């Protein structure tokens, strides 16, 4: 009798997990389709990073000779990693703003009324952002690599970069989703974006830390975005080494884990307040 009961419990738990996974996948699908249906929303996150990369490659082509600048074939090669991070930052904000819009227009409340998994609401949305991040990273590499920006790590290096782009997208999406859940306002999410932009600028994304000095260097040294970009850059400049792979995956994964935990905490706080 006891064995039968425990079997039922195990089956119910497994069934519940399956159901939860199916609901999360459905939410991920919804957020991906939502992005794909609004090209005007995603176009800036595809266009601007490419524009800046092409512009910087032409503007700063002579700066690669400055003492301290890493050995590169072109400025475009140097800019490859920052283009991915920049694009993914833009894209993740779009996903988080969509979550805030769901809260604003009451769709989030309807999801809560339905017998759906609570974490799936958030994780599904984030999975959609991560998929978009993967797509963006692959797109940027496909477009920019032919312009004298070879990846020393080859195809495995490129694949790790795409994966890392997806994780970065997940991490930033989780951070911005926390803002969305806390404020319930798409405007607040868009308003928080300049903070990310400032962080990006005060990092080694656009120029190497070795050429910086004073307060700017100190800020770049403690800025996590510097390490995100440098991990990816290692795959481009150093090759497919163990150290480069670990750096390009470890930093975003740690940030991602912390950000998701924080976003889930925000979600629990919101649910408790209802």
């Amino acid at each position: 009798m006891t064995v039968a009961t425990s079997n039922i419990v195990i089956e119910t738990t497994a069934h519940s997990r399956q159901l939860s996974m199916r609901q999360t996948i459905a939410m991920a699908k919804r957020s991906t389709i939502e992005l794909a249906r609004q090209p005007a929303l995603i176009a800036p996150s595809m266009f601007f990073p490419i524009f800046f990369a092409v512009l910087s490659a032409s503007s700063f082509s002579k700066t690669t000779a400055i003492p301290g600048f890493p050995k590169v074939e072109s400025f475009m090669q140097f800019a490859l990693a920052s283009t991915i991070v920049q694009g993914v930052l833009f894209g993740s904000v779009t996903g988080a703003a969509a979550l805030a819009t769901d809260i604003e227009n009451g769709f989030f409340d309807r999801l809560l009324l339905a017998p759906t998994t609570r974490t799936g609401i958030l994780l599904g949305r984030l999975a959609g952002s991560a998929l978009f991040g993967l797509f963006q990273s692959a797109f940027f590499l496909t477009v920019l690599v032919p312009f004298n920006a070879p990846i020393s790590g080859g195809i495995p290096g490129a694949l790790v970069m795409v994966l890392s782009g997806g994780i970065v997208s997940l991490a930033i999406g989780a951070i911005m989703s926390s803002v969305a859940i806390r404020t319930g306002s798409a405007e607040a999410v868009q308003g928080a974006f300049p903070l990310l932009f400032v962080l990006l600028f005060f990092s080694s994304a656009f120029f190497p830390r070795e050429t910086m000095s004073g307060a700017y260097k100190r800020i770049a040294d403690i800025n996590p975005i510097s390490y995100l970009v440098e991990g990816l850059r290692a795959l481009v400049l150093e090759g497919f080494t163990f150290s480069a792979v670990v750096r390009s995956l470890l930093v975003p994964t740690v940030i991602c884990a912390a950000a998701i935990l924080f976003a889930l905490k925000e979600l629990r706080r919101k649910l408790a307040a209802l």
Partner: protein
Amino acid sequence: MNTVATTTPVVTSVAKPTTMRSARGLAYRGIRNIRRLPSAFFPAMAMPVFTMIAFAGTFAAITRLPGFPTDRSVNWFMPLGICFGAAFSGIGLGFSTIRDIETRFYDRLLMSPAPRRSLIIGPLLTAWVRVAILCAFVIPMGILLGVRFTSGLLGLLTLVVAALGVSTISLGWGLGLAFRFRDMRGAAVMQLTMFVVLYLSSAQMPLPLMRGWLHNVARINPTTNILRLSREGLVLPTSPDYMSWSNTWGGLLAIAGMSTLTLVFARRGLNKLDK
């Protein structure tokens, strides 16, 4: 007889809506809006400061390149920041005009006997006041961060003239698009085009240090002349871009030409809206 005597003073006391009087009224409204809606003006103030600090710090090493016209990166990027801010001051008024069109306030303006010219001159005066506020805020901040004017007050004057010119151009462009689009779709086009035009110039690097396609584009982009005008009082006296008439007239001509084109564009847009 009595009736005539009482009517005449009433008629003469009604203010005739001259262009400048109406423009001043609209300018006052625009200036009051800075205080009432600071969030709309904030980006125009924050952007130059951010550009100056972030670019000067991140790209500080570019001054080590042989032939770079200044040894202080902040000297190079402060004028860029101010020109960005000036562009956004003009565009911001384009946004306000869109809002006025959407809320039907503009219909009331069009129904009034105010000369049509004043609907462009009024916002233009507001844009210039915004630029004055911007310069009064950003230049002292730049000086605190290490900016040095190498040709004294003349350098300050050329910088302010360039900023006023950029705001005039962007205002004409912003109003022209606002009158044509009549909704917030126009706002995205305004920002994007001004952004691209400014960047496809010597915004980040001096012309002789550029390579490839951007060099070719920046060479024919009139904005390069305006940026040269804004920077001529901030580069080293040994630089070919240092304060001289040959580095000034090109910028003034570019401002005159582009302002005329964009203001005509705005006026024609207003005529279409009026119909």
